[in-house]
């Protein structure tokens, strides 16, 4: 379909997002940040320890349209019982200041290890609120800010469930992520309790010719809305949404376990059939490279469609033009539990303006029929509203709290 296009490499993902200016400012203080190795190198300032993703201030939060950095932590919080609006205001005041400092390479106010903050590594921190936080703020939550419908294949564990707040912390350096996570947790310690932490990663060397692959080896994140503005109404809350969330986005976080043990038993043809895309190039099984359009109607000699009727991409493909969202997934590969030898999967993260309208129809189709369900099991699910950005003089959630 012509509204979707492959997300291109790191460089084009960053270009035009204002990252150059931010990086240049910092580079003036700390050096250019390139390693001079002569290999594929983005222009000075776009990578390296002191690279900045983009200026923190703006109508929208960073961390959505930016190409996903390779390391991430998703930290969900609950507000203590009896939390009032003023406490939420104070919490978001602290986070706004902390995030502005961290993303510009400075420690938070209380930071005794500012050296770690100096490695910005394209850090972005994206703040989302859950249903209860909106109520605490005195606003009416949008209908979609609620648990997704229950699906037959779900094996949801309470420990990865809904929460009142979320931080999506992403950077090129896992140390940067860990430091930001630690500071952002301790800085609101009396105001919010950590509910869960999910840590994820992508290919650190992702770039031209080296796509994001999930732990099944599949090229993942290929078909996406465009990020140059044309699909803004798919991604960001507009006129139809609540005033306080304009330029914000809905954020669905599903933890999906991937059974490495049973996947190992499947041959490559079976694996490609399950998705409808080739493992090597990520291109459709109907032919062509990664950018080639999917041909859902082509049949083989026996009259069967080349893309299996139950293939993941067939089932996930939009049936109406609005059934689209941005997928920003991270793999997880945690220490095995019990007698298991692996504990792997995907932190499936989707951004869109209205998940009930855009996401749920797709998820419902996948729940009904999707070959991938043989090897994947959703074990966590939570929905948040990623706040609009903080403009000059504002805190995150300014409109929510006004």
């Amino acid at each position, binding site marked *: 379909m012509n509204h979707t296009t492959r997300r291109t490499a790191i460089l084009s993902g960053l270009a035009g997002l204002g990252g150059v200016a931010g990086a240049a400012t910092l580079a*003036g*203080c700390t050096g250019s940040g390139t390693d001079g190795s002569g290999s594929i190198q983005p222009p000075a300032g776009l990578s390296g320890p002191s690279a900045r993703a983009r200026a923190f201030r703006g109508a929208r939060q960073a961390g959505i349209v930016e190409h996903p950095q390779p390391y991430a932590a998703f930290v969900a919080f609950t507000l203590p019982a009896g939390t009032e609006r003023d*406490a939420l*205001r*104070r*919490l978001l*005041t*602290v986070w706004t*200041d902390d995030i*502005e*400092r961290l993303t510009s390479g*400075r420690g*938070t*106010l*209380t930071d*005794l290890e500012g050296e770690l903050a100096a490695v910005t590594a394209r850090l972005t921190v994206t703040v989302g609120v859950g249903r209860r936080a909106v109520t605490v703020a005195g606003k009416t939550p949008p209908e979609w800010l609620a648990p997704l419908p229950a699906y037959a294949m779900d094996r949801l564990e309470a420990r990865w469930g809904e929460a009142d707040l979320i931080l999506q912390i992403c950077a090129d350096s896992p140390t940067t992520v860990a430091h930001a996570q630690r500071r952002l947790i*301790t*800085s*609101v*310690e*009396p*105001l919010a309790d950590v509910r869960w932490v999910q840590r994820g990663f992508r290919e650190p060397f992702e770039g031209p010719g080296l796509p994001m692959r999930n732990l099944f080896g599949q090229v993942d994140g290929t078909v996406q809305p465009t990020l140059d503005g044309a699909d803004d109404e798919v991604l960001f809350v507009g006129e139809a949404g609540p005033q306080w969330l304009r330029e914000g986005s809905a954020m669905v976080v599903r933890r999906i376990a991937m059974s490495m043990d049973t996947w190992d038993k499947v041959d490559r043809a079976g694996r490609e059939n399950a998705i409808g895309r080739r493992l090597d190039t990520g291109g459709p099984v109907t032919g062509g490279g990664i950018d080639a359009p999917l041909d859902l109607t082509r049949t083989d000699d026996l009259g069967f469609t080349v893309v299996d009727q139950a293939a993941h991409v067939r089932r996930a493909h939009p049936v109406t033009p609005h059934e689209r969202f941005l997928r920003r997934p991270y793999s997880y590969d945690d220490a095995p539990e019990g007698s298991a030898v692996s504990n792997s999967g995907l932190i499936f993260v989707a951004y869109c303006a209205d998940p009930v309208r855009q996401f749920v129809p797709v998820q419902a189709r996948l729940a009904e029929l999707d070959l991938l369900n043989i090897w994947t099991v959703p074990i966590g699910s939570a929905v948040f509203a990623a706040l609009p950005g903080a403009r000059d003089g504002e805190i995150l959630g300014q409109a929510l709290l006004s």
Partner: protein
Amino acid sequence: MRFLVRACAPVAVLALAACSSGTSTPSPASPGGAAPLTLTDGWCKSTDSMPAMSKEMTGCFGTLVNTTGKELKISGGSTDAAMMVELHETVKNASGQMQMQPVPDGFTIPAGGSFALKPGANHVMLMKLKGDLKTGDKVTVTFDTSAGKGALTWEIRAFPGAEESYVPSPSNS
């Protein structure tokens, strides 16, 4: 009261701020032009997560900047949030432990210079707090300086450190 402001000193401070740090609250005591005493990255440790017995007092940190061309002395201060404001240093006591105590002669900031307030070192102490200092709020402290009174606003932040024990000066025990 009027101050002699040497042109080069504030410029140097500004250039530094562009690279290294953020919020700077001017003191409104100045009659136009730069306030004699400003604060960069100032924060006080919140008390809302402290055990009740520790809530009596808290420390404030940041960088004090003397924007004047003259040495500036701070002798004390006051705030609506506490009964007393003290200027503290942290020293090793006879048994080798770090403890804080009031500095007898106050803080002295050289002309155009700055003065660091840090956990485990010099700091401002708010004593006999009248209520909780809540994480995410602000508190204003007015200082008595050789250049007049100067009000500075501090952010209030949760902080697990700054737990040095306190030895009161004979004057306020």
